């Protein structure tokens, strides 16, 4: 059943380290794939990266087995696809969170600064102390982009607000260290932060837990994490990796390649509102945020993208 090429043209999903049930980035992609499966009755393959040094082997194996298109998650796989994709010109790859300039790669990037701006506004509106926290995963420009958008949103509501931003580490281990995430959150809370935004993959679980333990608000990321600690998770910055995956699976091997940007305008990012946080978001808060959202989509309100020039007007790192 597993000889190469036996299963033709089923899509494939390469999940990054952290696993498909990380309640966050990877799980979002898996949700998109599952939705496609439910709706079309098709089948797909997924594999989970196990090891830094084996990335190429895993993507390659997926291509060898004939999966097409193949969605690959995480900017860490930019280098992987740069090497592997040219070897399989007949296969279409979709990379989420990174840009690879090859004819058979669709590079999907998100306007995380826009979504983070909105949750930043909510954070400032909910904060009583005027101090909010940000816990990033690995200290890379992508996560600074989250932090910077968030800070701009906070300052838009409360120009005097204090933003404490920390990163969990400088290696991929930083995505999966809830103990450290919890410690950082506790430290921020002790410094007065009463809303903490976690953009840290699996590490975020520790952050959300610490906030719930301390009785302050937290903000989830990527997937809708509102249900994890109802009453404590203020909202989640949705990054619709599920939609991106779903679209690629739907389009099949012929999916358009090149760079695709997913922002507020095309539903790529958003903030989450559901029964778990309905009580936390007042009508005024919602109105303020929705107004800002409309302005951003209309282009009348600009949110600075850290990655465009590696600077941030609202936050120094």
């Amino acid at each position, binding site marked *: 059943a597993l000889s190469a090429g036996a299963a033709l043209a089923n899509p494939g999903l390469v999940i990054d380290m952290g696993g498909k049930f*990380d309640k966050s980035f990877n799980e979002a992609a898996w949700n998109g794939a599952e939705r496609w499966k439910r709706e079309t009755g098709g089948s797909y393959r997924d594999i989970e990266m196990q090891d830094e040094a084996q990335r190429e082997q895993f993507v390659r194996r997926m291509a060898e087995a004939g999966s097409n298109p193949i969605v690959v998650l995480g900017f860490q796989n930019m280098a992987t696809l740069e090497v592997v994709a040219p070897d399989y010109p007949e296969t279409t790859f979709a990379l989420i969170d990174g840009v690879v300039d090859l004819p058979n790669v669709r590079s999907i990037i998100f306007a995380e600064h826009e979504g983070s701006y909105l949750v930043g506004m909510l954070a400032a509106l909910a904060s009583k102390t005027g101090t909010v926290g940000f816990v990033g995963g690995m200290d890379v420009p992508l996560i600074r982009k989250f932090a910077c958008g968030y800070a701009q949103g906070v300052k838009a509501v409360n120009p005097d607000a204090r933003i404490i931003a920390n990163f969990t580490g400088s290696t991929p281990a930083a995505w999966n260290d809830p103990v450290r995430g919890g410690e950082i959150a506790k*430290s921020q809370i002790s*410094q007065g932060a009463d809303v903490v935004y976690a953009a840290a993959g699996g590490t975020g*679980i520790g952050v959300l837990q610490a906030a719930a333990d301390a009785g302050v608000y937290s903000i989830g990321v990527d997937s809708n994490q509102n249900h994890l600690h109802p009453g404590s998770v203020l909202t989640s910055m949705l990054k619709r990796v599920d939609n991106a995956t779903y679209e690629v699976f739907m389009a099949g091997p012929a999916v358009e390649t090149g760079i695709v940007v997913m922002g507020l305008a095309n539903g790529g990012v958003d903030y989450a509102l559901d029964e778990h946080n309905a009580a936390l978001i007042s009508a005024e808060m919602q109105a303020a945020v929705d107004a800002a959202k409309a302005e951003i989509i209309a282009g009348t309100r600009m949110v600075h993208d850290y990655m465009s020039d590696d600077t941030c007007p609202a936050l120094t790192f």
Partner: protein
Amino acid sequence: MDVAAILSILEGTIRLSTPLLLACLAGLFSERAGVFDIGLEGKMLIAAFFSAAVAALAGSAWVGLAAGVAAALVLAVIHGLASITFRGNQLIAGVAINFLAAGLTVLVAENWFRLGGRTPSLSGEARFQGLTLPLTETLAGVPLLGPFWGTVISGHALLAYLAFLAVPATWWILYRTRFGLRLRAVGENPAAVDTAGISVVALRYAAVMICGLLCGLAGVYLATALSAGFVKDMSGGRGFIALAALIFAKWRPWSAMGATLLFGFLQSVATRFPRLDLGIVVVPAQFIDALPYLLTVVILAGFVGKAIPPRAGGTAYVKEHG
């Protein structure tokens, strides 16, 4: 740096020292009896997993505690079999135990929960919550002491207090009881113990099981108190830091507490200041991460007081060669 930050660092120090301290005392019992144990990490890890997993299923932290300790004890028995009964290489046995735990935890976690090697998050009764010590209210108004008591001393999980109480207990057992005398003797010269009519095997097994118990508690604390559930490799080298602390402390209980508090403090600082700006130089986080290991190497080099391990440590007791 303001007072709140200092208090927060100290509070974190206690929290992060606790698993180190428990594991360090675990190693102390085993190594004082002449059984070297580089498998502290593995025993801690397996206890972390089984405590979190069973706590999640049973909804009770106490049931989780029992399961975690039991799992660590099973590995301790393996270590005992290899290094006492079958007179194998204690160090190699420790290495094997570490890998066994690293592999089994993920394998079973994936099989039970399908969460990518994680357990579900624990909440409520499934987790050891912080305790508020008496006097917290009373002292709240007192400057310095109030916040210090309230933040740093009070508010930790039961296991943390247990860990720090284990220090005087260990000291007392080691130096004030018959068992302690025999335990220290068997680590120095098992033949003396044997000819005194005491079973070397039984003593060493006792020590190895105490080691398993304490490692188990360290793992349980890690998964059900310090964090809320198990993630792959969550011990993250703490077993080795505990080993480093043990050498640093020269196999003595009070010094073990000092060493683990120091290392916990370093972790607490590193967590809060990934890039420690000291004005003249910026200390990178990686340096602080590596500091316990660097300090241990310096100690081992013997430039700052020599660390002499128990003399019979690392070797099986063999009466007859064949």
